[in-house]
């Protein structure tokens, strides 16, 4: 059974809370960033800009941000740049980043994101 935790996303400041999911001690966003090649760092900075703007309750273009069709009532979000994808869910406080990936592994990543989401939400059930 994985251990879940959450923490503030490093680097952003916003009106709503931006959180990243930690699974067994591994931050999903920070781990993704640490493994990124240098050529993707500029896109990562952009995606942090999108996340921050979204948490400041600003609209984002459909080419940068999408609300996915969730099977339950817990909203799912996708932040996009040319190559990167960051997946989040809505929380009471703001948004929780659960998984990150690349454009070319999108359908596989969305399935993985939803599996993580399900396990995390079930861990909150009393």
């Amino acid at each position, binding site marked *: 059974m994985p251990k879940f935790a959450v923490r503030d996303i490093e680097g952003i400041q916003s009106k709503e809370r931006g959180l990243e999911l930690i699974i067994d001690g591994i931050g999903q966003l920070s781990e993704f960033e640490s493994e990124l090649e240098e050529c993707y760092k500029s896109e990562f900075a952009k995606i942090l800009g999108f996340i921050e703007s979204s948490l400041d309750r600003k609209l984002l273009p459909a080419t940068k941000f999408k609300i996915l069709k969730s099977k*339950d009532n817990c909203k799912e979000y996708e932040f996009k740049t040319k190559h990167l994808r960051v997946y989040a869910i809505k929380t009471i406080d703001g948004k929780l980043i659960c998984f990150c990936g690349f454009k070319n592994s999108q359908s596989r990543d969305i399935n993985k994101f939803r599996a993580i989401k399900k396990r995390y939400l079930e861990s909150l059930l009393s």
Partner: protein
Amino acid sequence: MKREELIRRKEYWITKIQIDLFNELTKFLKENKWTKAKFAEELGVTKSYVSQILNGDFDHKISKLVELSLAIKKAPVIKFVDLNVVDNRVKQVAQQTVVFVLEKNSVRQDFSRTIKATKQNDNYKFSKDKDTKYLTVHGDC
């Protein structure tokens, strides 16, 4: 990416400006019930140029930014702030502690409250509980 690094990356600031411009233009079009085509015609530009802005991809000359701002009845006020000032604000925020609550095999975030959930069919209902009778630790998990 630490805040100090993020605010020193041009992509971050370009993104913020693009998003602000997108928001202002979207708001203007909605309030005035203009289509993209009408706006393009009024501005004397192509529809694809307007689409570019609405895709958050505007990256043209300063004069174009000014033209666009005035077209949507906005003054493009730009304020330069010393990076050290922005950094200091970050350091103040960083002093807040993120508190984690440990409970058996699950770990929850606690900001003087506990988040609980119940589920019915596929619907989750979240609630906040002010009761904090848990062991708390500070720092990374």
